[in-house]
């Protein structure tokens, strides 16, 4: 229902940030997040950052599978 794109925060100013997704850059809103800074990865949907991304999917699925099999 909602396509999200992971992107890296390049710079921030007044609740907005410029994000970079493998070379494509756009200004988005970061007003919904209170704990992000340049260098962080965020999930972008419809021009706003909806979540901070804390790991890549390989690390995530590996630890989920470790836990499932433990």
């Amino acid at each position, binding site marked *: 229902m*909602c396509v999200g*794109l992971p*992107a890296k925060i390049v710079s921030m100013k007044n609740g907005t940030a410029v994000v970079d997704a493998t070379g*494509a850059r756009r200004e988005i809103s970061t007003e919904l997040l209170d704990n992000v800074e340049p260098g962080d990865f965020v999930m972008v949907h419809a021009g706003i950052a909806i979540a901070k991304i804390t790991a890549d999917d390989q690390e995530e699925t590996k630890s989920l599978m470790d836990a499932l099999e433990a």
Partner: protein
Amino acid sequence: MEEFITLAHGSGGRKTSELIGNLFKKYFANDYLTADDAAVLPGLSGRIAMTTDGFIVSPCEFPGGNIGKLSICGTVNDLACMGAKPTYLTCSFVIEEGFPVAKLEEIAAAMAKTAKEAGVSIVAGDTKVAGRGQVDGVFITTTGVGLIEEGADLSGAYAKPGDAILVTGDVGRHGTTILLARDEYGIEADVTSDCAPLWGTVKSMLDETKDIHVLRDATRGGVGTVLYEIAEESGVGITINEAVIPVDPAVAGVCGMLGLEPLYLACEGRLVVFAPKEKAEALLTVLRQGKYSESAAIIGEVTDDHKGRVVVRTPIGSETLLPPPGGELLPRIC
């Protein structure tokens, strides 16, 4: 003072002659381009290919080219896809009243430069001016003839099971460039159009082997559309390997933001090549030495089954259908 095209430039009178003399003749000059009603040309001995194409693009300048370069590449590449060395070309302009002369000059210069690189002479032309708002800037139509290389026998209907499929470079760059140049979505990326004349690329492949079945330039509709066309015209199935399709990361990023598929974005300097599997590596080696095909790749093969369809082998080892082409490309959130 900045000069603009006026309706008088299209009247056939003095202004028209001035425009042709000062601008088009200056750039396009060659022995065949005269003031006569038609170009008189030496005969070509052998099989001849002939094609025509109209060009409208907004904006008419973009990173990597302009409509002039595009109008030469498009026709030259269509000829090249039949194994024909582009030889003569005509061009017809419809220019909007008020179009800056300096811009028209840039367009003519790009046409001349590209024609020279492609080895083609612009032997005749026509200029019309339309009232403001009747056309968008400038529209160009080019028509070309070329001499088919001895031994080349190419057609969209000739793909055979067992053929390998190559693309001569990364996909979707022209479409992405135009999308960004229109600046409708506030996205920036360092992407330039792949627009290029490809006779040299084709010649290098034909010098390696004449045993090539299909060449097609992936323009409007992109590589995905070409694959479906060939599957249909040759009555074969196609399987491609998703992981090896070359896509520039920035193109992938733009597509990710807007929910678009790079395989369906236009290219203007990319060929899709179908040739027997045993020739594929040699062709790839040749292509990777060419200046417009350094990122060439073998992306799939022709099969006997799933005729008329294009199947994608996914990175997790499963198979799925490449969505058939269709409709206006619209950015999406879902």
